[in-house]
């Protein structure tokens, strides 16, 4: 079922039924009631449901692909900020994680306005693309964190937990 039309749509549609202007006041020169009403009649033809859906999906795609636009910028910024532990690079790296995570937790909300009976299935792929791009942003973050040396990926990271076993034998000596 199509949603109820908003009041302004009804108003616009019932433009013709508007009470005629009082006859004692002349129309302004060049104003043609019939002509304008004819034109507007043609324009205000309500879009079909498919058209609305297409539009919604298109808009959804725009939202979904927005993170892709910021990806190169993020990469450049991360590259430029260096691997040292400074407040800015730490904050920027943290943003790389917090923003996508927040976005991921709000996927439903973000696309709810585009959601409809018809668009629901089509939005799925859009959402997937959106999620994929957010994950890509996180991957950049992980890459950055790794470059900063914060990931336990090397042998030295586990060195503190490695201990030489207690030797089996003991030795007692005095060489005086």
């Amino acid at each position, binding site marked *: 079922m199509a949603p109820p039309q908003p009041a302004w749509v009804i108003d616009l549609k019932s433009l013709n039924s508007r009470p005629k202007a009082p006859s004692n006041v002349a129309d302004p020169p060049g104003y043609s009631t019939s002509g304008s009403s004819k034109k507007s009649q043609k324009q205000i033809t309500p879009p079909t449901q498919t058209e609305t859906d297409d539009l919604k999906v298109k808009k959804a795609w725009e939202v979904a692909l927005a993170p892709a636009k910021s990806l190169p910028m993020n990469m450049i910024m991360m590259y430029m900020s260096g691997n040292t532990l400074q407040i800015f690079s730490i904050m920027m790296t943290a943003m790389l994680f917090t923003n996508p995570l927040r976005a991921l937790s709000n996927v439903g909300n973000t696309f709810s306005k585009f959601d409809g009976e018809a668009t629901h299935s089509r939005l799925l792929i859009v959402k997937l693309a959106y999620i994929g791009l957010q994950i890509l942003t996180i991957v950049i973050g992980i890459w950055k964190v790794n470059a900063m*040396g914060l990931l336990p990926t090397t*042998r030295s990271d586990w*060195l503190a937990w490695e201990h030489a076993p207690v*030797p089996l034998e*003991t030795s*007692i000596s*005095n*060489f005086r």
Partner: protein
Amino acid sequence: MWLRHDPLHYLLLAGSLLSSSCQAVFSDEAFHTDFQVQLFGTALDPSSTFFHQAAAGKSGSLLYTLSNRLVIGAINPKDGAQVWRQRLGEGTVSESEELSKSAWLRKSKDGRIVSVFDKAIALWDAATGRAVWEYSASVTVADIITLEAENLLVVALKGGEVKAIKLESGEIAWETLVGEGRDVASNFNLIGDRLFLTLSEPASTALKTVVISPATGAQLETFVDGVFGPSDAHVLTPQILPLTAFRDSDHLKLNTLGTKHTKSLAVDSTVHGYRLHAVTKDTLFVEFWAKSPDSATSWADFYTIKDGVVTKKISLPYENAISVFSLSDSGSGIFAARVNRAEIRIYDTESDTQVKAFELPKMLPTEPLHVVAEVVKRKDGAIAVRAAITLADGNMVLARNDQIVWTRQEALASAVAAEFVDVHEVEDTLEKTLHAEEANNLVAAYIKRVTRHIEELKYLPGWIAGFKESILGIFGPAAPTDAAVTKDPFGYRKFVVFVTRFGWVTAVDTANRGEVVWTINLGKTKILEKDIKGIFHFGKGIVLVVLSSGDIYKIDAITGKGLKKAVVQILPSASVMTVESPTTDDRWIIAVPVKEGVKGWFWPDEKEEELTKALSKATLSRKCEASSGICGYTAKPTVGGRLILNPTWSFRLPPNQKMVSINTRPAHDPIASIGKVLGDRSVMYKYVNPHLALLIASAPSTSSIYLYLLDTVSGAVLHTSVQSDADTTRPIVATIAENWYVYSYYSNSAARGTQLVVTDFYASATKNDPGRLLQHNISSYDQPRSTSPYGISHAFIFTHPITSLATTVTRQGITTRAVLLSVPKLGSLLAINKRTLEPRRPVGREPTAEEKEEGLFKYDPYLGVDHGRASLSHIRDLVGIEKIITTPSLLESTSIVVGWGIDVFGTRTNPSEAFDVLGRGFNKLALIGSVLAVGVGTLFLRPMVRKKQIGQRWAQ
């Protein structure tokens, strides 16, 4: 890369980065955290110790002395402070009787003193200790005499050569040869303007005297004074007397110079010792004593010499006790001072009764050895005395009348062994107590805790006092507090227990400027380094001194009380070691004899099963006979305190190699990280083996030194290296810790000089390969060649000879190590960070970024000494530091270092900077001030803000 580690690493790195640009000792810590006990050593001979005016015309004299460690110097008699010090030679702790024949100190004219040691003669400025000139003779010096009128110093060499040296310039004025080089010169005497030189002619068994003209050196006359048999020996005769003295087995013979007249005094010289004193040419004073300390006797005789005839005047009373004598010319008469443990008695030449007795306020700690006294008779007839007494424990005491003015702990200069004792061991550490509390049930734990708190109340007064101090300390430098009453939270307080060659055990406190805490007599008169089997820690606050005679002394190291003395029948050649039970607190000492098939000993002879358990997996190792290598044994206790020994391995040096030293890792040597993280974040695993022993051998024939790294469990040779072109006569020293060793030797190669070589050992040559390091149940016996450690070395050239090497140790081993060097030429104790002595430093190129990250910098073969950064002793002048010992404090950053030999020097060092303690420069005032300011501000602002908030609410 470092964030992924323990937070401590983080701190450490910050610290170690700082350390590269920081001072070894901060200027505000110098003289506060370190101490130096400036020592001379025990005065050698009463004739070489004297009061003397430092400069002509100056009133007041200094006390000059020559010690058994060949140090000469001046002591201020008022307070016992050192005025100056010079070293005559690199002497070891040797027999003073032997030494006093070849070394002596004499007064000279114009405020100069002259020293002789073996072949070297030196004239010193008495006030400053500067050398005026030095002269080195070709043979040993027999005697010297200063001729005031001629301004000459005449020297007689053993072979009969006589040289006159000008006092101002040190040039030879004349020289002559007495005899044909066959005679043995012994003694100068000056009578008027005739200089007599006494010589013995071994060939013709004659004693002869040659008269020499002081001005020209011409030999004027020769007398043959008498028969000088092969058993005869010279007696040191005061040069002022017209006599020469010699002795045979039962006579003291006094020959009047220039005549055949010889007076013979019957003294059994095997039983009695004697010494001749004289201050004027007509009075001879002979001091006698019994040679054996068990039957102490002493007496003395006055003789007058008139016209060449020696006659006995009076005899001072014979006493069955040790007393020592000194003769003094007060200007108004000659006095003899007689000193025993309790009193100083003054005799004059007229009667055998004392003219004055000064009773000392306290008995001297031990018998006097010899004394130098100055007696003054005032115009009103009152007698005053000043006596520098050398005691049998090696210390020197100055007594003025009936007061002890000062005591110098000179015995510490004759220490033969030293060991740290942790004062905190006695108190159960808090951690242990808490664990014990946890183990109990609730009620018992509660009771235990309350009792502990009550127990700890004893620290409260000290804490309050200390609290006051620390509050005051905010505003100014804190006064040193008595360490005994306040707790020592950082564990800086350690006792160093010394065994001296005089048979005493002495402990000094490192937290209290090296003050002597206690001293105890072992009841042995003479202990040499070879007599000490060891000083061992034996449980909480207990040390055990084991002598090669088999005597075992158990001493409470905190109070200095002798707890137990035991005698075990052990062979003098046995090696003594301690065994700790792995499960209980039991300890034993075991003696492993060198002879094959002989059983060992263990003491105490109890808890045999426990010892069996403790020894079941243990390998004992010791030097093989004649130092030919290292021998390993397994042991099993049996009845009667004996050990059955089974030789398991031995490593013997080839016959042309001589053992120099064996070093093992310090007893407390934790390895915090078993790997070294490289710049690319891979790991080089260290070669971790607690059983390492580094054996250094020298081969003089090929001038090489050989280094063998052994596993003392299996006897396996893990690594060897050879240095050719080494000077094997110079000191070769080494230290080993963790997975590395450092050694120093003198190289005659193209890079001539002292070289310092560092070798690090890794489990394998490849990165990230722990080898068998992490595998469990790997036995030391199971070591195929493929598992030998991978060693990397770097050699550095050092500017000065190094006589001792050691390494710092800290509680957990996280702090970077520093290698400590004793450099006698500089008079310093230096610390070189292990990061500098790093074999992975890139050679001939700048380090890459990764290497920089690892902390490596370009290798420079020349290891210069930057005193500001390296010297732990800063501006102090250390004399004779021969051994360095280190121990951890309770702070991870800090290691306590004590160097000993002649001086005792102690300090605390932070190789990675003091990352866990606030420095003295920390502004507590600013901190407390700002806290108070914020507090006061809050106090004022709070009501204001509240009022405003309430106002706002009402206004809405």
